């Protein structure tokens, strides 16, 4: 299999047709400094996945310490209390800012948006390239923070001052600042990137593509970018103030100098809460794309889903202090936030119901992407309902800072980041690499991951309900928590983590092997109706379509099983 017959990467095709008068890009221009949205998307994808290796390695190390306190962790060594805090802090920070956001929004957003709306690229290709470059610098700054004297920042991803603002408390003078700088750079990268996603999605749609004809994933990424851009500002202000406190001895958050530590909390969580919806929305977008294709059904209530998503986004700005119920805010304010927080369950529940309703009357095929999408719904359902315990202020008095919180947010974040990524990767792999992944390996990977994930986090609900607090490196220190039963739950979680990690090897093998040696993909392997599958070659060339063949749209993205038609799908760009 040397020269595939259908040239999946489309290199030989019509550069002269473009009439742009530019030369064939060199290797450096194409892979190191690309402006093509597909390549930039790939850069974000691989960088995000590399950062996930760090985040995964860190959790491996600290979970080994928790299950077997004092152990010399293979490939790591002993975990000291200072290192434990740094591992926990950086695991969380990496997974949210350097894995979930770049992969779900920047990688898939970049790759998919122009293709799905029938455009040849993002509207600002060079700004796009700059966003990635800033993002890459942020990765390097974060990695550097772990190797400076004093070690990496260990004040938890929430970085509450005065611990985070004062190195006499944190003991990590350089690590703390580098950590904040890395986060700030990541924010800058996504602000710039967001401009591209929003403007391109809103403006550059193919002729004939009305608002309700846009695939749901495009709107989800667009709304997520808007949410991000409108919520991150206060935290950028806070980050500047924190850096000044750390390095210049200002006292924005230091009570000894007239500052207020709770101010940071408000600035952080005003962003922090919308941020979880920023990452949730793209994941639900992937689910929408996949369940429609593999149940051969139109999305149930497209408009309703869109409005509930916008409603959730707006409401997400009014719930932030549920992270601060017992932190010293005025207790009367807690009542306001418990009302808004419990109510936000309504639009999210509606979205879940609408996705499930899409299955009704369908003809469901259990391919690997479909399994992932369904797995998302099942896991997020548990994550969502357990959130009610935490949003209800009276119950949160007990649950705050326990492993119950941790299990809740992993039952939401894991579907978002992990399951969402695999849903997208297994579904769009043919588009990205022109070849097909192996279905059997894919299914093994899915079941191994899905089952072991539940075995990690179910025990953590129990531990949390029994009063186990977070961020403590050895629970044997507390008699109520040092019982053999509780320790065996910790061991179960750690062993399940090792199983989870092992199954990812299956995926990595499948991924890299299929990239080079998988069967060549047909042009539209899943018989989907959306535009990304209509490019002349399955793996689109530069410009995606020849300029004289840019698609025009005649209908919505999910016209499956239309009565009276022979084929069970009706592509958006076919006139009739």
């Amino acid at each position: 299999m040397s020269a595939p017959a259908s040239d999946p990467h489309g290199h030989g095709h019509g550069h002269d047709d473009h009439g742009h008068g530019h030369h064939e890009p060199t290797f450096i221009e194409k892979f190191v400094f690309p402006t093509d949205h597909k390549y930039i998307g790939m850069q974000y994808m691989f960088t995000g996945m590399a950062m996930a290796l760090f985040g995964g390695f860190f959790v491996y190390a600290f979970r080994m310490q928790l299950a077997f306190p004092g152990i010399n962790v293979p490939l790591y060594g002993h975990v000291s209390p200072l290192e434990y805090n740094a591992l926990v802090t950086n695991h969380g920070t990496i997974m949210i800012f350097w894995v979930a956001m770049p992969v779900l929004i920047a990688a898939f957003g970049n790759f998919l948006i122009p293709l799905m709306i029938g455009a040849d690229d993002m509207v600002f290709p060079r700004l796009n390239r700059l966003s990635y470059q800033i993002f890459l610098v942020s990765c390097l700054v974060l990695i550097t923070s772990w190797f400076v004297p004093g070690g990496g920042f260990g004040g938890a991803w929430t970085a509450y001052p005065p611990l985070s603002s004062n190195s006499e408390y944190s003991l990590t003078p350089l690590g703390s600042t580098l950590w904040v700088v890395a986060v700030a750079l990541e924010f800058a990268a996504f602000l710039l990137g967001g401009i591209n996603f929003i403007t391109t999605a809103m403006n550059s749609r193919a002729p004939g593509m009305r608002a309700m004809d846009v695939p749901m994933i495009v709107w989800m990424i667009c709304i997520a970018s808007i949410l991000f851009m409108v919520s991150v500002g206060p935290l950028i202000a806070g980050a500047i103030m924190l850096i000044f406190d750390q390095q210049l001895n200002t006292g924005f958050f230091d009570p000894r100098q007239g500052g207020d530590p709770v101010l940071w909390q408000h600035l952080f969580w005003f962003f922090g809460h919308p941020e979880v919806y920023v990452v949730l929305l793209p994941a639900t977008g992937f689910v929408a794309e996949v369940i429609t294709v593999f149940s051969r059904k139109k999305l149930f209530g497209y408009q309703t889903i869109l409005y509930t998503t916008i409603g959730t986004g707006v409401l997400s700005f009014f719930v932030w202090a549920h992270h601060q119920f017992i932190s010293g805010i005025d207790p009367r304010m807690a009542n306001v936030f418990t009302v808004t927080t419990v109510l936000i369950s309504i639009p999210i529940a509606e979205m879940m119901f609408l996705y499930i309703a899409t299955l009704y009357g369908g003809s469901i095929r259990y391919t690997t992407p479909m399994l992932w999408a369904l797995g998302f719904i099942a896991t997020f359902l548990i994550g969502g309902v357990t959130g009610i315990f935490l949003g209800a202020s009276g119950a949160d008095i007990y649950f705050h800072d326990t492993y119950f919180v941790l299990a809740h947010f992993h039952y939401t974040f894991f579907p978002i980041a992990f399951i969402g990524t695999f849903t997208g990767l297994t579904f769009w792999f043919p588009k990205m690499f022109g070849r097909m992944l192996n279905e059997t390996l894919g299914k093994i990977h899915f079941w191994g991951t899905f089952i072991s994930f539940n075995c990690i986090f179910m025990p953590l609900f129990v531990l949390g309900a029994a009063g186990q607090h977070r961020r403590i490196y050895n629970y044997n220190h507390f008699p109520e928590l040092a019982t053999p039963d509780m320790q065996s739950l910790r061991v179960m979680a750690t062993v399940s983590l090792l199983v989870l990690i092992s199954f990812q090897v299956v995926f990595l093998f499948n991924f890299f092997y299929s990239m080079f040696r998988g069967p060549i993909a047909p042009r539209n392997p899943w018989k989907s109706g959306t535009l990304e599958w209509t490019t002349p070659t399955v793996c689109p060339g530069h410009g995606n379509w020849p300029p004289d063949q840019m698609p025009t749209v005649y209908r919505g993205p999910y016209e499956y099983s239309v009565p009276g038609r022979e084929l069970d799908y009706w592509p958006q760009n076919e006139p009739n």
Partner: protein
Amino acid sequence: MGFRPIATTRSATGVPTGKLAVWWLLASEVVIFGGVLMSYLMHRINHVDWTYEAAHTDVRIGTFNTLVLLTSSLTAVIAHHYAEKGDGVKASNYLLLTIGGAVTFASIKFGIEWPTEIAHGFTITSSPFWSFYYVAAGVHAAHVIVGAIIMGFVAYDARQGRDLHRVENVGLYWHFVDLVWIFLFPLLYIAK
């Protein structure tokens, strides 16, 4: 690479792509400055003693700088007017005047105002009021400088008759920077 994607020529919302992008950028900037200002306001309300510190900001310099910025916004508007008429050279000239306003603003702030205040002992660490003062005014000044640099590139292109639509877009950004100052000025200089 100088080519523009076909995507940039479309406008499903009716708003040109560049202008739409600037509006979204401004939306995020509103929240950044909003965060700084809300934090300042919450502190100020709870700390009446800040008035003693605030008494030492120089209203005359603040007023002069406000006039400088307002005038520069005027020249930006005039530049847009000429850009609309297709006169790139005149548009570029008025943009250069705007940049001149920015340079004046920054020179007065960094050359006269801040050195004077620092020499009198009002540094970023001398009190919470001054911490906020330097951060808020500093972040604003950074936006003025970056804006001036970008405006320089736009002015250069406009003089060659290229990309005249960017004159309006950079003008929008400039008005925003001006608007932020209109909020900062009373909070930092007048409220005593």
